[in-house]
């Protein structure tokens, strides 16, 4: 069972790798829309990558209004 910190770290790794942002520039409290420079379509892509990576379902409505990595990790953690 992953800890919340591990889940957060994996999200940051995945986001950095896919959206080509240096990992060291990403922190759990960052607004991922601004930090990754993504729009809602790319946010949907991130959601899909996270679902595939963690092997979970993450309904869109659970992440609506969520913009920071830490809260996103918390929503994912609840489904692991």
């Amino acid at each position, binding site marked *: 069972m992953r800890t919340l910190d591990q889940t957060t770290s994996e999200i940051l790794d995945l986001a950095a790798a896919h959206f080509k942002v240096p990992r060291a520039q990403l922190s759990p409290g960052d607004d991922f829309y601004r930090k990754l420079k993504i*729009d*809602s379509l790319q*946010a*949907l*892509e991130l959601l*899909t990558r996270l679902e595939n990576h963690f092997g979970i*379902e993450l*309904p*869109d409505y659970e992440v609506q209004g969520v913009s920071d990595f830490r809260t996103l990790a918390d929503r994912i953690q609840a489904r692991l």
Partner: protein
Amino acid sequence: MNEFTGKTLSWKLSGGIVEVELHYAPCNEIGIAMLDELELLVKALPQIESQASALILYSSRKEGFSAGGDLRELYRLSAATEGQARLDGMRAFIHRVHHVANTLDASPLTTIAAVHGICFGGGFELALTCDIIVADKMARFAFPELRLGIIPGFGGIPRLRRDVGNAVVRDLLFTGRSIGAAKAQAVGLVSQVAAEGESLRLARTTAAQVLKYDRHTSAVCKKFAKPIPLEDLRRETELFCDLFARPAVMEALRKFVDSTDAHPYLP
């Protein structure tokens, strides 16, 4: 017409397989331009069907298979008319879409939708006319229509209900949420999941397999295995038009059109 290149889509028949490519920016929104060319396709189908066994429907747009109905065009055209004229215009458009969808659905060809990226609303409904859906692992399917105060109007509910359990249909409709390819496969909607960017290749190998069988036998089997829910489709049109007549729908469309988000796709 075995080959066609249009503004929104193209097709080419080769080796018993006709490949239909959707390529209308930004993400194959289905409005009048797309519908005009889909009508050209179904008009050409009888000639194609005499030479082919399979049809592959795919998108070359990076964003996905199709974002669905062209809501901006819908709002613009609807705002230019009022009352019964607006409703008559909508009904005529829906009837044209249904003619295309029903013709594709009933084609004796074995039809395969190769889906990647977003497959929402009307795009999802177009994919549902196909016999087999293959999807890459980044594909997402959704019916976000209820957020606009309407239901899917291109035949989505009867066709989805034909293919998956009603609980899944209600989940997708009532929440508007999108589901990924893995979930779509788990509920029986998607037959095979491909690696990212490989859905067309997978569709081609599937079509090659289809080609090994006798065309007539496949067509007879399809007619029996995949009946078209015509009565439910008619009922859906009536419900859609009743809902579309409400002022709240125009207001919801206006909000969508006024959205500053470049891709307001999230349900």
